[in-house]
């Protein structure tokens, strides 16, 4: 229902922010995400940052997937 893309916040000036993904930059509004800091990964929807990406959670999910993938191999496919 809604596209939202994780991008890294690289500049912040009040409610104005610049986000980057793969070397592409765009200015976004931070009005809806007051506590975002430079370096955070934020979810961008329609020109606004609407949420933060939790890197620890992301790491855990990826590790979980790696374990699941490995179980397939050890389980003989």
């Amino acid at each position: 229902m809604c596209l939202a893309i994780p991008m890294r916040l690289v500049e912040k000036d009040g409610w104005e922010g610049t986000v980057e993904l793969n070397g592409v930059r765009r200015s976004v509004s931070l009005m809806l995400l007051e506590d975002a800091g430079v370096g955070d990964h934020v979810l961008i929807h329609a020109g606004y940052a609407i949420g933060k990406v939790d890197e620890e959670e992301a790491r855990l999910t990826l590790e979980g997937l790696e374990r699941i993938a490995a179980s397939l191999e050890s389980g003989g496919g």
Partner: protein
Amino acid sequence: MRASDRILLGHGAGGRLTRALVKDLFVPLFSNPALEALSDAAVLPAWPGGRPALTTDAFVVDPLEFPGGDLGRLAVCGTVNDLCVSGARPLWLTFALVLEEGAEMGLLRRCAESAAEAARDAGVQIVAGDTKVVPKGRGDKIYAVTAGLGSVPEGRDWGDHRVAEGDALLVTGPVGDHGATIMACRHGMAGEGLRSDVAPLNGLVEALAASGAQVHALHDPTRGGVLVTCHEVAERAGVRIVLDEEALPVRGEVRAVCDLLGLHPLSSPCEGRALVFVEAGDAERALKALRSHPFGTGAARVGRVEAGRKGASPVAVRTVSGEERPLDLLSGAELPRIC
């Protein structure tokens, strides 16, 4: 008469202003004997042999200037590329402009200069041209129309009639750069690596031909990108085209722009790439030739041609997991979306 920094209706009226535009701007830039005669038609040197190939194209682009090129470069490369993917060696171009009253003279000069530069890069001559001016509000600064005449060498027969089951599909570099760059400009995005790929392909194509690889067909995936081109070939040749998702070169910047706007890199136009259908056994030789040319360093083998099958999608992509997924044609231009 003092030079105006704006296009005036008089620049298209055929009087002094028009003559000044032609003599001071276009003739010195495009300089060649056929043009310099300034007669009603360019009388060309003797035909070099082979079958003539003729094409024309109209160019509108917003913005007119973008990272990697502008309307002038696009107008020359587009026609050069249409000729050379048909197997022709491009020789002569015409160059017509529809200008909007009030457009900046500097913009026109820059576009004309890059058209001249692109023609030099491609080794073609712009031998005839025209300018018309429409009242302000009736156009969008500059529209360009080019036509091109080239010669297909004896014995060269490229086209979709030769595309057959088993062929390998190559692309001469990363896809979608031009379209993603234009969309990025329109939607406030920028990135150092984000540039249009607009370039004349005739040198690259001749290098490919010289490699001796059995080339069956070439296409430049402009409007609608790789996706539309593959659908057109599949339909005309009665074959099925299966792309390899992992092998498709897409720059990270292009992917980012597409992700943000909800677009697909395979539908994003290229202006300096070719899709090459080649005898499978010659794929490596063809790739080597492409990669040795500056415009083909990113060439890759991206798919294969299968026999057409009723009840199967004409174009599909093989995913990382080895499955095939249908790739449907889009209904119209892709629009930025939020869903």
